[in-house]
């Protein structure tokens, strides 16, 4: 099916709240979560998308989460992406395993990595993380232990001797600029030094525990 045919079929078969647009390889459906199972069933039955490729989530920060599914038609060779927004406070969706049995693993992984609940899932147990692991590591507010425990190799200035750990800045912390204070009259003016920088791409508030 061509993208235009899929869009026409969605317009005729799904409620108008379901957004539908062509993307670079197929069609993207933006589904309110109340219509999630209906949209999946529609993709499987009416759009002939019999191949379940993957299900995952995206942490959209203040806008909550998106759960995204990619399905494919082996006969028609067309791709369909389905995405649904979920609130950050209580991210829950009904399970897709009744429509695509292969979604079971993907929902288990999404559950442990993002903390998204899938109501009605037959066995929503952790899949990949070690026993007793706390937190959801693919959420953007999850602090990576390796970034806290390890010293940032870029903390040293060119030509500088190793910096003792105690003098290293916490990532994202505002550092006083040495030499910015006005020296007492007659005192030797200290050589101003560049502000010691923290590691890039590490959020504020992370740092040595």
């Amino acid at each position, binding site marked *: 099916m061509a993208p235009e045919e899929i869009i026409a079929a969605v317009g005729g078969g799904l409620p108008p709240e379901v957004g539908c647009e062509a993307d670079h390889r197929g069609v993207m459906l933006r589904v309110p979560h109340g219509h999630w199972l209906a949209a999946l069933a529609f993709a499987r039955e009416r759009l002939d998308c019999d191949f379940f490729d993957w299900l995952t989530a995206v942490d959209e920060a203040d806008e909550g989460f998106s759960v995204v599914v990619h399905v494919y038609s082996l006969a028609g060779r067309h791709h369909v992406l389905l995405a649904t927004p979920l609130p950050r406070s209580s991210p829950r969706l009904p399970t897709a395993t009744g429509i695509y049995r292969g979604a079971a693993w993907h929902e288990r992984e999404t559950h442990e990595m993002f903390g998204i609940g899938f109501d009605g899932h037959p066995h929503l147990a952790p899949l990949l993380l070690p026993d007793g692991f706390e937190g959801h590591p693919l959420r953007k507010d999850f602090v990576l232990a390796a970034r806290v425990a390890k010293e940032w190799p870029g903390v040293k200035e*060119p030509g500088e001797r190793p910096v003792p750990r105690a003098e290293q800045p916490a990532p994202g912390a505002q550092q006083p600029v040495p030499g910015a204070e006005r020296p007492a009259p007659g005192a030797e003016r200290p050589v101003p030094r560049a502000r010691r920088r923290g590691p890039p791409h590490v959020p504020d508030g992370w740092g040595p525990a």
Partner: protein
Amino acid sequence: MTGATPSTDGLPARSRGVIALLEENCTVCMLCARECPDWCIYIESHQEPVPGTEYGGEDPARAPAGRGRQRVRNVLDRFAIDFSLCMYCGICVEACPYDALFWSPEFSYAETDIAALTHEQGRLREWMWTVPPPPAHDEGQRPPQD
């Protein structure tokens, strides 16, 4: 690619096997270590005075390089890449403004001890001799500017 005895024959020049260091070109600017998303590049250095720029006091005649401050240069003491952490993104190679880091297609450096995957300066330099020449420019391409 798949064969009984894997070799680098036939691999394109852009292959990402291992990262080589030409330490003469390294100015210890720290850009690669700071850009590395995996924090797997370790650099240690110190500063040495540049001969001939000693501060000669207030008398300009005695100061070979005028009355400015003593000039110093950075000297590399250690450059190591931990290939057990490296994800082969090549950001360090791209970030280096001084052509000190290069991709080599060599990939046969498996180890039984994870610590041995940290290649120090000497070993990174040995990879340098396996770096292929850059591919020829395309026909009709603008000539290189440098």
